[in-house]
């Protein structure tokens, strides 16, 4: 532990309002994990409703409140609230804060040899703004009319006329966006300015590269969403008509508004953010997986430079594909042609990243520990998710698939068994750095295998449902003749989802048990090469006892002529 402190900070400065990037990283990670648990529970409620439409949920059904689930039966409005909030929580309060706020904050400064982030106070502020945004989001369940219920995309005009919860959602989003913006400025400055001597961009661990590009995406893509949010807020609170067309009829009456607005404008602003946002979800995952694969195959990453270039290109292209989410709004064929072409182009760098990692396995002496298992599973899972994206990117196929369960299957494969598996891999991998103890391997493997089986059980059937034409956001699919043949799959998914929930129990036990009772290890238990592993575990305030210098690239494993099979970046050695 950090015993060399002349003055100890009081508890609240050290653990609550801390400016140390490591404490903030852990705060982010734990908050995000809790939100993800909440998101998972919401999903289970929805899954029950889909498998057993309009039947009371045994046990917890009565806890949901008379207004939401009278007699334990989820009402359609409440189902919509759960849907919208599940998406919002998972993306904006779970995965991104864990991947960027958690891992980025904790690992990135260590990997570049910095004592902290460039703006520690700003860093603390990002976390607390995020926290308040999250609390606002959750609190919206208790306002009149309940939480937002127009999907995580909040399309107007529906969202404009939704109940008060939507206003709260927008305010919450403004907090979350602000937090991301502050964070991304901090990341960019830190990576550009605080690298130690010798750590050139060509020697930067891929994880840092991924965080760097991600920060640019956050910095430049979030403001247009903020615009969308502000304008929708104006529509709702000031009764403007930015997104409201003239002559809109609701419940048989023409709405008394100025009109003249354009609902499509919202979709453009939204997807201008939200497509880059999907790369915000995936790039840090690639960063984590790359570190783990290099370390556990004991060999350099295949095509590191190509991967870096692909990532830069990906970041750039991600601003040019947004309207592939909008093929069905009636855009001209020229427009749709443009976005089909850019979408096909952007899948190339994604495939490059995946292929490089796959080829990195070739001839490696692979160590199958828990982090590596999660990292290995990430590869085919992301591949399924990415490949199913291609038909969606082609307007002809998308006419059939848009807004069906196929889309749900597609993006969940990239985000859940993709990104979330990578995040689990990262937790198992860097846990010894944060606590000085490794997580239990047996529990880890139980967690891994059950999660892998169940998560595929949850998402694979969705492709079949989607191909059969079943729409997303249905409260009771059995009301549609074409959805009835695939209804048994919903029952199957429910069991798989419950299994997935149960599979997290070994993880939760492992997490807390290992933090206090796990096996103690030295600073570099995986015998990895990057700088974070020369710092003490856990690193003290200021991170390194002596500022390191860097002499070589990040993945010098099994270098011929070296006595060890790993060569630390900070090891001067002979050339």
């Amino acid at each position, binding site marked *: 532990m950090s015993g060399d402190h002349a003055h100890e900070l009081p508890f609240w400065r050290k653990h609550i309002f801390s400016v140390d990037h490591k404490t903030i990283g852990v705060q982010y990670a734990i908050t995000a994990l809790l939100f993800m648990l909440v998101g998972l529970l919401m999903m289970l409620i929805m899954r029950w409703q889909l498998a057993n439409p309009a039947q009371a949920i045994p046990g917890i059904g009565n806890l949901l409140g008379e207004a939401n689930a009278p007699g334990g039966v989820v009402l359609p409005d409440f189902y919509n609230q759960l849907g919208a909030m599940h998406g919002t929580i998972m993306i904006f309060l779970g995965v991104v804060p864990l991947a960027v706020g958690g891992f980025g904050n904790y690992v990135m400064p260590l990997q570049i040899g910095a004592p902290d982030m460039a703006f520690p106070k700003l860093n603390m502020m990002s976390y607390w703004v995020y926290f308040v945004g999250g609390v606002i989001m959750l609190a919206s369940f208790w306002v009149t009319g309940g939480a937002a219920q127009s999907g995580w995309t909040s399309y107007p005009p529906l969202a404009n006329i939704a109940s008060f919860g939507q206003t709260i959602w927008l305010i919450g989003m403004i907090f979350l966006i602000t937090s991301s913006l502050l964070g991304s400025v901090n990341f960019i400055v830190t990576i550009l300015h605080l690298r130690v001597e010798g750590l050139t961009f060509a020697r930067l661990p891929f994880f840092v590269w991924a965080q760097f590009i991600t920060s640019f995406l956050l910095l430049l893509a979030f403001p247009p969403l903020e615009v969308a949010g502000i304008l929708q807020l104006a529509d709702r609170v000031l009764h403007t008509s930015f997104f409201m067309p003239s002559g809109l009829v609701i419940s048989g009456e023409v709405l008394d508004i100025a009109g003249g*607005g*354009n609902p499509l404008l919202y979709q453009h602003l939204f997807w201008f953010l939200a497509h880059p946002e999907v790369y915000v979800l995936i790039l840090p995952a690639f960063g984590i997986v790359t570190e783990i694969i290099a370390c556990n195959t004991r060999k350099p990453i295949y095509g590191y430079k190509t991967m870096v270039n692909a990532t830069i290109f990906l970041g750039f292209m991600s601003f040019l594909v947004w309207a592939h989410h909008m093929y069905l709004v009636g855009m001209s064929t020229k427009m749709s042609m443009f976005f089909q072409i850019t979408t096909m182009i952007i899948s190339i760098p994604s495939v490059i990243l995946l292929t490089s990692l796959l080829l990195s396995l070739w001839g490696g002496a692979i160590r199958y520990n828990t982090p590596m298992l999660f990292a290995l599973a990430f590869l085919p899972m992301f591949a399924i998710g990415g490949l199913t994206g291609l038909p969606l990117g082609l307007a002809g196929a998308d006419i059939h698939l848009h807004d069906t369960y196929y889309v749900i299957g597609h993006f969940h494969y990239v985000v859940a068994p993709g990104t979330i598996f990578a995040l689990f891999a990262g937790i198992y991998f860097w846990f010894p750095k944060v606590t000085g103890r490794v997580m239990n391997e047996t529990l880890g493997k139980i967690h891994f295998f059950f999660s892998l089986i169940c998560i595929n059980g949850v998402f694979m059937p969705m492709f079949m449902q989607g191909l059969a034409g079943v729409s997303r956001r249905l409260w009771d699919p059995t009301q549609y003749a074409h959805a009835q043949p695939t209804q048994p799959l919903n029952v199957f998914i429910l069991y798989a989802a419950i299994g997935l929930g149960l599979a997290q129990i070994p993880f939760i036990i492992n997490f807390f048990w290992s933090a206090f009772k796990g096996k103690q290890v030295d600073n570099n238990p995986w015998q990895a090469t990057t700088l974070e592993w020369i710092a003490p575990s856990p690193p003290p305030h*200021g991170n390194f006892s002596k500022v390191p210098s860097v002499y070589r690239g990040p993945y010098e494993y099994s270098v011929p002529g070296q006595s060890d099979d790993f060569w630390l970046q900070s090891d001067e050695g002979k050339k």
Partner: protein
Amino acid sequence: MSEAVIKHIADPHPVTGVTNSKLGIWCFIASEVMLFGGLFSTYILLRTGAGADWPIGSDLLNVPLATLNTMILITSSITMVMAWASLTINKFGAYKKYMTLTVLLGVAFLIVKSFEYGMKFEHHIYPSKNNFYAIYFVMTGLHVLHVIGGLVVNLYLLLPGSKLWHKAPEQFMGRIEAAGLYWHFVDLVWIFLFPTLYLL
């Protein structure tokens, strides 16, 4: 020894040539460009969608007051530069004078703006009247928020924040420069807003 020493707080980075805070403020401005870029795109889309129904700004808005406000903001940008320049030649008193002027001009801008808004409200003109007023109020309103933000920062640097000058003059000058960049950006936004909303 493990006290965190963060590099490039006062000394520029050899490659980028700027300090942390200056790089940070440039990144922040980049995101602000995207914010106002989104708003200007919205304006263009709404206007092209409305066709001939869209009013001409000068028929509805108070151009003389807005011109006055343009002058005020440009002047405040100049006094902001003078404040920074005074520090470079080590004249702390002059800095205080110019910074006070900058703050006062910012306040003057807000007062003029509130007259303008007030006159609209008197005639029962609110954002909900039509999309022209909607975008007018939202864009100028967001700009006003940015002015208020700048004022708070400048006021801080004028009063309690100026103690740093005696401890770490380089770092203090860096802060003034960063605040100045932001202030010029707010000024620049207005310079785009003025013709777009009031004249065209």
